[in-house]
């Protein structure tokens, strides 16, 4: 499914093995779509010598730091962006900046 800026999303808590570009600390966490960066060959396929086609949409996804870490030391308004492929996202209920 396609997402729009501002949509709340959750990163799938998948334990997919091998080469993935979704860091573990974001799995299961919720945030918001900042914007779609573009479409790129899927790096999870490229890593094994495949074409990575069809290209996958890549989003800049924001997360409030307190939603990532229970003991976050900084400000409640601090946030983090990561670039996450669409197949790692589902609709969610995260906080937003």
């Amino acid at each position, binding site marked *: 499914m396609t997402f729009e800026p501002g949509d709340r999303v959750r990163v799938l808590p998948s334990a997919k093995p091998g080469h993935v570009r979704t860091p573990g600390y974001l799995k299961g966490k919720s945030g918001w779509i900042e914007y779609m960066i573009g479409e790129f060959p899927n790096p999870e396929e490229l890593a094994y010598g495949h074409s990575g086609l069809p290209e996958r949409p890549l989003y800049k996804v924001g997360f409030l730091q307190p939603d990532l870490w229970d003991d976050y030391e900084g400000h409640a308004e*601090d946030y983090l962006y990561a*670039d996450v492929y669409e197949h790692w996202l589902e609709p969610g209920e995260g906080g937003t900046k």
Partner: protein
Amino acid sequence: MSDHHPHEETTMSPYAARIRAIEGLLLEKGVLTEPEVQDSIAYMEARSPANGARLVARAWVDEDFEELLLSDAKAAASQLGMEPEHPAEFVVVKNTPGVHNLIVCTLCSCYPRAVLGRPPDWYKSFAYRSRAVREPRAVMREFGFEPPEDVEVVVHDSTADVRYMVLPMRPSGTEDLGEEELASLVTRDSLVGVNVPRL
């Protein structure tokens, strides 16, 4: 393998030895050629944080250029004679009085190499990669920068196909400085966001 680098035998680390062995095999099997290896070294050595400093200094003195840098960083770099061509996107994020940006790659060591060259060793360390996302303010403090109380810290984890660079704020008291002098204030650390330029 030792044909190419015999003088280094005694001081080579195990990692360097492994790389030399792989390089030797790739050459022997014809996957790579020596000129390709040399071209690749020359490519990387032609790039440095000085490129980033030039981009920042130009943006500080030229609003139109700043706009281009923030909307199409590769076009801006090309305009200054750099060769930013790379399969990955290049995005510049701007510090403001309300927002301070910090760049990290938690998965490996993604860095805008096509413009800035090789990242510093600490950027690739497990300590930086794990702490920058979890306690960015503590990390910056250790680099000698304390973000003001009312500033939001925004971390960019370059997990995929974008390489990020920070456009820091122009320090106050630099109104009379020329572009070249301004560029000399822009450190590599300030392009990653662990610190800021100072007069």
